[in-house]
């Protein structure tokens, strides 16, 4: 039972001090969660603290490997709109 930080993490440090289990640490490229220490905040908080403050959609995965904050859930930008605009920018 553990969450996972992936490489879209922008190293904002927001999650690290919140973890009740000291499971989060800064690694070479970005922050990581020690799976042996992560408790998914059970017994401490209702919601996983790291995933509740992380500003980057998709940066933190649950134990099934699914994004806890999927595209659009934090920024409010509909994923289709994002794709459209990014394609347009690429074309330039």
């Amino acid at each position, binding site marked *: 039972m553990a969450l996972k930080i992936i490489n879209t993490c922008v190293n904002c440090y*927001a999650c690290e001090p919140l973890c009740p289990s000291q499971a989060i640490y800064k690694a070479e490229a970005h922050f990581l969660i020690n799976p042996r220490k992560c408790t998914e905040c059970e017994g401490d908080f209702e919601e996983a603290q790291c995933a509740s*403050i992380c500003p980057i959609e998709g940066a933190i995965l649950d134990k099934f490997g699914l994004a806890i904050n999927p595209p659009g859930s*934090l*920024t*409010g*930008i509909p994923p289709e709109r994002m794709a459209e605009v990014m394609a347009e920018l690429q074309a330039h």
Partner: protein
Amino acid sequence: MELPVLNDQPASKGGCSASSCGTTDDQLDHLTDEIRAKVQNHPCYSEDAHHYFARMHVAVAPACNIQCHYCNRKYDCANESRPGVVSELLTPDQAVKKTMAVAANIPQMTVLGIAGPGDPLANPEQTFETFRQLSQDAPDIKLCVSTNGLALPASVEELSKHNIDHVTITINCVDPEVGAKIYPWIFWENRRIKGIEGAKILIEQQQKGLEMLVAKGILVKVNSVMIPGVNDKHLAEVSRIVKSKGAFLHNVMPLIAEAEHGTFYGVMGQRGPTPDELMELQDSCSGDMNMMRHCRQCRADAVGMLGEDRGDEFTMDKIEDMEIDYQAAMEKRKVIHQAIEAEMNSKREAKSATLAKQVAEEKLTTRPVLMAVATSGQGVINVHFGHAKEFLIYEASPEGVRFISHRKTDLYCGGDETCGDGESVLQQTIRALAGCETVLCSKIGYEPWEMLEQAGIMPNGEHAMEPIEEAVMAVYKEMAKAGKLDEIKPEQRATA
């Protein structure tokens, strides 16, 4: 850690280029003597001081506790920096070392601010450790901090222990319904709270923090981002409320939203205000409040005069090698500060004397005129039209000359309809000058001359190297004499 700098246009080229000194320094007019004494050497608050004094920011605070729709957290806090900028993150020890190195090498540096790259008060340990060390080791440096306000009430006690005389709060609204359109979520009491509920808590904390700071005697400046169609109508009320609670300065900044920044507003096509809209709002608030008109939206690790960035001279690897004797530096700084103050005062007196004379000569009754000026500082007209990265906008009227704002030449892309492929830099520049009737520069080419004239803006290169206010007044008088000011303002043809 080497961080990349994306889209690094802010500041680095600039140099102090605003000039609105002496009699035209309207933004400090309403202040009590006590506050005026506190801010008159502060480069960010006094248009006058920022020719002479410098500030720096250190980036020690990476985390943030809210989301703003104009910010992409891949980059620095957009409340305090232009979007799309990434600063070199420092530990408190590194930041202290850097600050003292800069203070020793640039004695004009009087103010150290922490503004990001996230929210300073969401990183209390780093922020307060930096302040604690500096209050102790470099007591001649003023400290300031900016915040979104969420963690402010919890921080006031600690803030009051350090050498802090200014706090900047970004307040974009006082109505949670408006807030929900600006802030999609906040992190509060161990939960992410979205929508109106989150915005309501944020607004409450901002207002409470403002009141607590004022009660402690700490100066509060309020920043607002003007977002057309979202909070533009609402900001006059914000201005009134923050003023009544004791904020001493209100700074309304334009939203900067570009799709490539990946922000909500950028991607959704929300436009920023036009220069006219911004000016109108600043004017409508200024009856109530000291408005700050020369903010350059500098980055979280900026070093130098406003609008200038000498950060490259003080990267961490260069600083590690510097030996600093701060006691000696402090002696030297004191002498230089006194000399600068003396110079500021004598220039201020000389200028008000000349202007008073100009105005007294013959009392005009003509309408006010906006003029754009190309300058790189020292208070004179000294930039070629084609090289100007920004223009200072002045208003000339029978009352005298008043600094209004600065306009970047590349900032005002208004989105799809105005920013089609074909628009040249020149056309963009002309659009940025909308509302001005004259542009003063040191020189100008033939082609831009023609285009400006066609757009209803008269180029003028006759006052190269002359002091700005005097030249603006002289041109105004010529216009009056030529009968140009009897007519109502000509329709501008530069709307494309």
